[in-house]
């Protein structure tokens, strides 16, 4: 089995983010690392975050930093990854790529203890960079520029210190003196020698300054001083002329200002009122903002509260450090303060957001200061505050993030054309059920009813230079309606259009005149109002029209073509006539190329299933240039220029190729390349779009021509970052469409369907999925689908949170306090409302502020029945007394008394640290009532451990409780034990059953294949895996095969060898299995690994599903970082050969951006086996043209053919 791996949705979570001017110029940009993907984002003028570039780097990015050489205009990006190399990137605006400026190897690859890459620090003047490991090694590179102003990098200077842990490093701003780097270090050498733990408890963290002597080219430890033992993060304080220099040390509960030769200035971080005393407050992300006259820091705690830190200083003496409560936003991985007054918050889980500063927190608020710090006998006096609604920030945009995907199922529950992907995402109060559908999201601007059923719609401008459209023209079967676009859209009658007849085409002709083609002629409306009318000869009518701005071709009934051109005076002149052999099905003229008089190509589709290209040049006018026969009669034709390769932000580096698109009557979209000179057709591709013949329309997307195909659902063909993408739109079936541009809506589409006129815009280009979000209460764990009833049943649980009642009480208290403070007269029912209605935008929504923390042995959990169509929860059961649900399954017991029942495995009082303990485990059995909309507890059975896996098996229930696999039957009061096997190594986390085989996944030891002998009532393990695998997801593929994913980011398939499988099945008594002994406590047989692939992300769910109607099945997986991928099995040996060669050449000629070897990355834990990396192959179009040709030559193909192959295989998956 050979598989093709393809990422369908790139990771949506963010690891770290930096901001700067990466393209030069004024615009503020953000570079984010999403694990294995590096993105460049830019907020546009409307404050929406746009992805400019997204590159898969085939490595794990761990840190990012930006720097700028003195006097330069743009920032460089330094990447610390698992490649054992330091990489410096520059954004190339012209080609829209990251250029690798430098790549220096310093160590082994992989995320190791002593190989740098975890931390990066930059000298604020851009003269040096330090890259550190979390232990021992730190390297300093000197950055400079040569005579040609190119960036140079020195050989590394070592700043190692063995037996030392490093918590954080940062640059110290000391103007133009020698660069200094600061590090929080902890020496463990003594702790290791002392087994009593005495030394370990006395270990002391130090703040160390390393000085890079630029003259001697040498790094020395300049200064080291004890620092608070909770220190975890360093923040650079501006120096030189701008501030006092030094660093802010963020420690648990404190922020301390430190500098060499300066006394510590310490202030306590204010605590939330409701925080348990045992918990500290840790700063997890920091941002510094520097203005001309002042600077401040924003520090965010692990609970999401942002504090503004300011320093009172006089030259380089700091007299006071103030920490003031600023606002509360969801916890971030990184914050970026943009110069344009925005705050980009890269959330660690859930959606990212862009905020605008309303103020910078100058108003009064809870404040802690070093001046008022009180030390008592129990330590420093804490300062308390209560989170409040946003005061200084306003959220203006959100970037969707699926991180983390906890569970996922693909099913066509809504009976749409393609299946939906149901994902459980997020954590705690920000968790949600997201329903992903393939296709782009559409936002509807307006829908208005028309007086009849329209057949077509167009928009026209009055003049070529106009920015916006002037009219919307709607044609009915016997009339034409003209609407003018202004502040409002209203009907007009003075436009000059003939309104008593249907229209066939309406467009702008020449520079400033309008043309209406109706069945009996062409009406040419000049700018000054003069009207020229051309009438059809005799009784013939016009059947089809094709036009561009300067040329018009009409087809008369019977098959005569008449060709008109606009002459210099703006007159429409008949040029040529041509008789076709039969009726014309459709026509199109290519748009006039830049700087030319006319376009050379006319495409004519006939009912005899052919498409002809005719010339429109004066010297061979109406000569057939080429003929293409197609599988079905064409319905619609469209010429579209496609730049197949990246270049510039809009992809305009390579010569475009002209594509002729044809919508055929059998629902297929047929695309073929038209040779720009000869008009020959070549390289055709076809794709089934839907049940209706696609009608093709040219619209404008991001300022470029794109294609809208209207079949049984609308599709958009457009160019995104150099790739031509054909994606469905999540919208209803449309009849006819045109692009639309007005003051309110710059790039929209106007379409007709039924009796309505619809105006919509297309959002978030480049995405594969659009999502519908249904909020949930706690971290969702697992869910089951009820396909017949179209309901989902899910379990949610959170550790360390207060129960709903406790939260309610606390909230009430807080409201009372707040209201008493504000006006003293709180109205009771107002409070009730605020508390009851979760969806309401109440000022302290948990979604925003997180649940109040409780002790770590507290659990909250609920079981929910949800109707995904309406998003309504039909039943919600909160579990009581620290009980939390961990597993769920539906089960039909064979006595059939109750029908389908729901089994939920729970644990009471579960604790992980210092050792995993549990008070009790239970299996609840629920009965569905009210047609499955509600649940009723039948009984619960106590078990000795946590039931982490449940599965129906032959009318009974299989449960994995710790290392025990047990079979239960349903009793009146409780479940009845029938049979068990205690021989599993650690903890059972997954059970799947097929016929009499049971596939059990162990948390640490991969799969165990078991067999149940009904006559003996015994469970045997007959095969297991020889590789330790920390299972996170598993899926049953076939009788002998299982797919699994481990904690380290690998996906693998194991298969029982055929002969062993046969032997087991043939053994009639089962005696062999029973008495056969394995070696070293293992099972007698071993499964073989047949597929192995490192995804680079923890895969949490796997499923076999088909994502397109009629397509083959593939394995779809979701990951913690919020990405969705698919593994597609090749069906032919040729394809395998082709793609493995392509992959090989791509590896050689296009090594990954951040210096990780591709093969080594995909084999990070186990050698990759029989999986071809589609993500690497899909980078082929981004290569320079000569490299593309070189690779294509070696594969004995043309670049076009390779692109076609890539497109084909993608179309098989999605």
């Amino acid at each position, binding site marked *: 089995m050979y598989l093709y791996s393809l990422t369908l949705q790139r990771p949506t979570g963010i690891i770290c983010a930096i901001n700067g001017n990466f393209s030069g110029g004024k615009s503020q940009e953000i570079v984010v690392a999403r694990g294995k993907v590096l993105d460049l984002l830019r907020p546009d003028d409307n404050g929406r975050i746009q992805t400019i570039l997204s590159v898969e780097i085939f490595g794990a990015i761990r840190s990012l930093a930006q720097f700028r050489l003195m006097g330069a205009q743009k920032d460089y990006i330094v990447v610390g990854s698992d490649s054992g190399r330091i990489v410096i990137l520059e954004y190339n605006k012209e080609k829209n790529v990251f250029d690798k400026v430098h790549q220096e190897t310093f160590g082994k690859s992989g995320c190791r*203890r*002593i190989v740098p890459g975890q931390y990066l620090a930059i000298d604020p003047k851009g003269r040096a960079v330090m890259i550190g490991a*979390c*232990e021992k090694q730190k390297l300093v590179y000197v950055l400079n520029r040569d005579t040609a102003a190119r960036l140079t990098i020195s050989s590394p200077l070592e700043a190692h210190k063995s037996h030392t842990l490093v918590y954080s490093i940062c640059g110290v701003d000391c103007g133009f003196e020698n660069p200094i780097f600061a590090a929080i270090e902890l020496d463990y050498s003594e702790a290791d020698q002392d087994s009593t733990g005495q030394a370990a408890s006395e270990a002391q963290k130090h703040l160390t300054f390393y000085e890079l002597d630029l003259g001697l080219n040498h790094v020395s430890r300049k200064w080291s001083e004890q620092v608070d033992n909770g220190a*975890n993060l360093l923040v650079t304080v501006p120096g030189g002329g701008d501030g006092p220099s030094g660093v802010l040390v963020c420690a648990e509960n404190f922020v301390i200002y430190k500098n060499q030769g300066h006394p510590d200035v310490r202030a306590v971080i204010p605590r939330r009122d409701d925080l348990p005393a045992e918990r500290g407050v840790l700063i997890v992300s920091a941002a510094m903002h520097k203005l001309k006259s002042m600077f401040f820091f924003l520090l965010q705690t692990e609970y999401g509260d942002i504090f503004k830190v300011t320093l009172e200083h006089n030259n380089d003496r700091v007299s006071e450090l103030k920490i003031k409560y600023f606002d509360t936003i969801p916890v971030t991985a990184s914050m970026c303060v943009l110069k344009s007054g925005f705050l980009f918050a890269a959330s*660690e889980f859930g959606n990212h957001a862009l905020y605008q500063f309303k103020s910078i927190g100058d108003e009064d608020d809870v404040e802690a200061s070093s001046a008022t710090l009180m030390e008592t006998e129990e330590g420093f006096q804490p300062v308390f505050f209560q989170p409040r609604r946003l005061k200084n920030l306003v959220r203006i945009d959100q970037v969707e993030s699926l991180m983390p995907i906890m569970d996922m199922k693909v099913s066509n529950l809504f009976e749409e054309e393609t299946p939906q992907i149901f994902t459980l995402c997020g954590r705690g109060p920000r968790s949600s059920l997201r329903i992903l559908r393939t296709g782009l999201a559409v936002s509807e601007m307006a829908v208005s009813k028309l007086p009849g059923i329209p057949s077509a719609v167009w928009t026209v401008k009055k003049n070529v230079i106009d920015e916006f459209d002037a009219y919307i023209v709607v044609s009915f079967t016997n009339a034409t309606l003209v609407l003018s676009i202004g502040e409002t859209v209203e009907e007009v009658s003075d436009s000059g259009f003939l309104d008593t007849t249907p229209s066939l085409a309406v467009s702008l002709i020449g520079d400033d005149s309008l043309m209406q083609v109706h069945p009996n002629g062409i009406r040419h409306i000049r700018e000054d109002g003069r009207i020229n009318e051309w009438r059809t000869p005799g009784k013939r009518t016009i059947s089809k029209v094709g036009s561009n701005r300067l040329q018009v071709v009409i087809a008369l009934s019977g098959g005569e073509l008449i060709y008109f051109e606009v002459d210099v005076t703006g007159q429409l002149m008949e040029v040529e006539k041509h008789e076709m052999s039969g009726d014309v099905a459709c026509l199109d003229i290519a748009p006039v190329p830049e700087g030319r008089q006319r376009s050379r190509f006319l495409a004519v589709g006939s009912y005899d299933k052919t498409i002809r290209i005719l010339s429109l040049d004066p010297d061979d006018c109406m000569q057939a240039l080429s003929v293409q026969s197609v599988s079905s009669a064409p319905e619609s034709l469209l010429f579209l220029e496609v730049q197949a390769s990246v270049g510039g932000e809009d992809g305009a580096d390579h010569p475009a190729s002209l594509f002729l698109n044809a919508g055929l009557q059998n629902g297929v979209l047929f695309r073929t390349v038209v040779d720009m000179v000869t008009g020959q057709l070549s390289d055709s591709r076809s794709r089934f779009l839907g049940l209706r013949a696609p009608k093709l329309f040219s619209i404008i997307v991001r300022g470029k021509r794109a294609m809208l195909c209207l079949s049984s659902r609308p599709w958009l063909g457009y160019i995104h970052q150099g790739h031509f993408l054909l994606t469905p739109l999540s919208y209803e079936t449309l009849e006819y469409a045109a692009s639309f541009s007005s003051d309110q809506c710059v790039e929209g589409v106007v379409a007709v369907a039924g009796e309505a006129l619809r105006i919509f815009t297309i959002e978030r280009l480049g995405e594969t999925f659009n999502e519908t979000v249904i909020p949930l209460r706690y971290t969702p764990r697992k869910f089951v689908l009820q396909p017949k009833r179209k309901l989902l049943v899910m379990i949610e649980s959170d550790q360390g949170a207060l129960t709903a009642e406790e939260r309610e009480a606390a909230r009430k208290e807080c409201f009372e306090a707040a209201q008493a403070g504000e006006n003293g007269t709180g109205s009771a029912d107002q409070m009730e409302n605020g508390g009851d209605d979760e969806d309401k935008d109440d000022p302290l929504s948990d979604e925003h502020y997180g649940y109040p923390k409780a002790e770590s042995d507290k659990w909250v959990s609920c079981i929910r029945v949800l109707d995904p169509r309406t998003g309504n929860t039909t039943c919600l059961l909160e579990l009581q007394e620290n009980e939390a649900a961990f597993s769920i399954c539906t089960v039909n017991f064979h006595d059939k008394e109750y029908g389908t029942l729901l089994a939920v495995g729970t644990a009471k009082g579960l604790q992980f640290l210092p050792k995993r303990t549990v008070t009790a485990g239970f299996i609840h059995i629920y009965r569905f009532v009210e047609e499955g909309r509600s649940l009723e507890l039948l009984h619960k059975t106590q078990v000795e451990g946590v039931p982490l896996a449940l599965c129906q098996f032959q009318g009974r229930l299989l449960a994995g409780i710790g290392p025990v696999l047990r079979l239960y039957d349903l009793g009146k009061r409780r479940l009845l034990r029938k049979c068990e096997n205690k021989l599993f190594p650690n903890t059972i986390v997954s059970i799947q059953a097929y016929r009499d085989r049971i596939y059990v996944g162990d948390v640490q030891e991969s799969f165990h294949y078991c067999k149940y002998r009904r006559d003996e009532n015994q469970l045997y393990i007959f095969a297991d895996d020889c590789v330790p695998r920390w299972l996170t997801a598993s899926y049953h593929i076939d009788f002998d095969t299982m797919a699994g994913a481990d904690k380290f*980011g690998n996906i693998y398939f194991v298969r029982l060898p055929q002969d062993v499988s046969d032997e087991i099945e043939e053994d009639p008594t089962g005696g062999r299995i029973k008495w056969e002994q394995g070696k070293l406590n293992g099972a007698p047989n071993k499964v073989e690994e047949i597929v192995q692939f490192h995804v680079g992300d923890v895969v949490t769910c796997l499923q076999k599903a088909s994502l397109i109607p009629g397509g083959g099945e593939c394995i779809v997986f979701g990951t913690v970082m919020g990405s969705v991928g698919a593994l597609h099995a090749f069906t032919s040996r040729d394809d395998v050969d082709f793609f493995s060669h392509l992959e090989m050449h791509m590896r050689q000629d296009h090594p990954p951006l951040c210096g990780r070897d591709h093969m080594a990355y995909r084999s990070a834990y186990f050698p990759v086996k029989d999986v071809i990396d589609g993500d690497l192959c899909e980078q082929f179009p981004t290569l320079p043209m000569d490299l593309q040709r070189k690779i294509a030559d070696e594969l004995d193909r043309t670049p076009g053919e390779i692109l076609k192959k890539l497109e084909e295989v993608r179309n098989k998956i999605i």
Partner: protein
Amino acid sequence: MQASDRFNINSQLEHLQAKYVGTGHADLNRFEWAVNIQRDSYASYIGHYPLLAYFGIAENESIGRERYSFMQRRLVFYL
């Protein structure tokens, strides 16, 4: 140190031991071995962000807190 010592296998090993932290040797005791494994593992968890997030979800802590406590656990062990 004499010139011949440089090629002595033992001194070479010692040098390598010092250079590559975490490498085992013949006289390693159980505690040292476990400590090394644990330090290696935590370093790997800290380096692989998705894993850190995975632990963060399990323990319902923020990723920043999780990273910090993993760093701390490299000093103090739960064996």
